[in-house]
C-alpha cells in the first residue's frame, strides 16, 4: 500500500509473500555468514506482523460469515447454538463455527495468481525493452 494511492489488496499480498519469504533468505545469509541478530530481529518483527494480518483476516472472515448467515435469515438457530458452544469452549464443535468463515483459500489463491501475472508481465517488459544496466 502506498501513500496517496488506493489499493485492493494485491500490494498487501505482495508484502505478505515477501515477509513470509524473509526467514528463508535470512537463513541463507546466516549460512553465508552475512547475517546478524539485528537483521533477525527485523525478520521476526515482519513475520509477527504478517502472521497477525493473516490471523486478523481469518477472524474478519469469520465475523463476516456469521454476519452474512444471520442477515440472510438462515440458520439463526444454528448460529446461537454455535455461539453457545464457543462460549462453553467445546473443542471440536467449535470447529463448526470455522465453517462459516468466508475467508477461504480461493480468494487468496486468486490474489496470488494476479500478483504472479503482474510480476511475470513486468519481467516480459524487462525482456522486451532490455534495460542496459541491471543492479
Amino acid at each position, binding site marked *: 500500500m*502506498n*501513500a496517496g*494511492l488506493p*489499493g*485492493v*489488496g494485491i*500490494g*498487501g499480498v505482495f508484502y505478505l509473500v515477501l515477509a513470509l519469504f524473509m526467514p528463508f533468505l535470512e537463513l541463507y545469509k546466516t549460512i553465508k555468514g552475512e547475517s546478524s541478530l539485528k537483521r533477525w530481529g527485523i525478520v521476526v518483527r515482519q513475520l509477527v506482523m504478517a502472521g497477525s494480518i493473516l490471523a486478523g483476516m481469518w477472524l474478519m472472515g469469520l465475523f463476516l460469515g456469521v454476519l452474512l448467515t444471520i442477515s440472510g435469515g438462515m440458520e439463526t438457530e444454528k448460529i446461537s447454538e454455535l455461539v453457545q458452544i464457543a462460549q462453553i469452549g467445546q473443542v471440536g464443535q467449535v470447529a463448526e463455527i470455522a465453517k462459516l468463515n468466508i475467508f477461504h483459500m480461493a480468494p487468496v489463491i486468486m490474489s496470488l495468481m494476479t500478483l504472479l501475472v503482474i510480476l511475470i508481465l*513486468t519481467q516480459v517488459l524487462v525482456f522486451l525493452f532490455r*534495460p542496459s544496466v541491471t543492479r
Partner: protein
Amino acid sequence: MAEDMDLTWTFYHHGYDVRFVPKAMCYPIEPHNFDFMRKQLRRWSHGFIQNVVLHWRANLRIPYLRHLVSVALWDAAIASLVYLFIVPLLVVIYGQPLFLLAYVIDLPAVLIPALFTPEGRKNYGRVLASVPAFFILRTVNGYFILNAMWEEWVRRRPLKVYEKGH
C-alpha cells in the same frame, strides 16, 4: 509533480538505495478542508502517473522498483474500479447492502501494520482514530487516480500547475 517520488526513484537509478527509517518523526500540516485535500489528492495521483511515464524504462533496470511500481499501478487502477463502480453496481443489482462490507473487508490488513508502526511513540489512540478516515479517503482517492490516468494517458493533458494543498 510528486517531486519526492521523482527524487527517490532517481536515487535508485543512480545506484543509491533508499531506506525506511521507522523512528523518524514528521508532523505534516494536513489539509483542513476538502478543497485543499482535493488539490493534494490531484497532485499525488497525477504525480504518480507522471513519474511512471517519465521513469518506467529506468525503473525496469531495478528489480525492487519495477515490481513495487507495477503492483502499485495495477492495484490503484483495479481498486478504483472496484470501489467506485463494481461494489455499488453489485449493491444495486442484487439489492444487497452487505456488499458494502467490501469497502472494509481488509480492515486487519490496514489496522495491524498501523498499530505496529507507533511502537514506542504511544500514539495508538491517534492511529485508531484515523482508521475510519482511511477507508473514506481510499474511496475518494479512487476517483482522482482514475481521473489522472484519463487526463495523462488518454487526453494527454498533464497537470503542470502546482496547486498547494497544504
